[in-house]
């Protein structure tokens, strides 16, 4: 079980945070381009699945899997989008984990800190270390990856 990387977007599409633990292949474009691409994909896929859905949707987009990795997605009612890429062996989806990241790390260390402006990319060292600690402690995180 491997966790590859993590993205956090706000409601207007700004990438607030990106972290990677084990990325073996680069996207072949600048980081800024990659964030825009990721956000665009999320936006389009959410819209697409709602339109195509044959029944009324409650949660909408949860995750997508490929042969090599799985992308987990969680969006709050305030428009914050959490994305986590893990290997495809992870069963189900990690939305609960992403919700925990939201409530225990983002809300505690960014929202409650008046010095952290909400629309800007996160530069808080505390957030970085707490997130890193949290992800490394996840049962799905493999010890042998750096």
């Amino acid at each position: 079980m491997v966790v590859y990387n993590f993205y956090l977007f706000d409601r207007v599409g700004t990438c607030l945070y990106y972290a990677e633990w084990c990325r073996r292949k680069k996207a072949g474009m600048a980081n800024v381009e990659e964030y825009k691409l990721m956000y665009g994909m999320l936006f389009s896929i959410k819209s697409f699945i709602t339109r195509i859905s044959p029944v009324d949707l409650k949660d909408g987009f949860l995750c997508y899997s490929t042969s090599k990795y799985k992308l987990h997605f969680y969006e709050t009612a305030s428009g914050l989008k959490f994305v986590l890429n893990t290997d495809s062996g992870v069963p189900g989806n990690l939305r609960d984990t992403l919700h925990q990241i939201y409530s225990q790390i983002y809300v505690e260390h960014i929202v409650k800190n008046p010095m952290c402006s909400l629309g800007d990319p996160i530069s808080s060292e505390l957030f970085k270390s707490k997130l890193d600690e949290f992800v490394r402690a996840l049962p799905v995180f493999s010890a042998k990856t750096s």
Partner: protein
Amino acid sequence: MSRPNVKGLDPKKVSGELFTLTYGAIVAQLLKDYESDEEVNKQLDRMGYNIGVRLIEDFLARSGISRCNDFRETSDAIAKIGFKMFLGITPSVSNWSPAGDEFSLQIESNPLVDFVELPDSHSNLSYCNILCGVIRGALEMV
């Protein structure tokens, strides 16, 4: 700011009074600085707005609630979950407009106004205007 409560219930009661006193001190200082009731109302609303914008994230994280489907659900979420979570009170939702797009929240015992009496000279002051700002800020984010 969020310390674990090791001593039990008593410190919580003390901090409730501290909250009331702190709010009273803020309003009193604003009145000294701005002198006009209208201006103070505006400032309280702005302060509340800034609080609301962040408070909504805390609310969503703790309540785990998803989007409300209609305005009635919203009114219930604010009164029964939001106010309960942050102020420990449950205002009653009433006075629905015929179009269903306006309602009133009536608060019986508001912790912000414990021990407070408004003198006649400040009859235009909306003492709890910060709550209006908080609701406005919070709802704007969802």
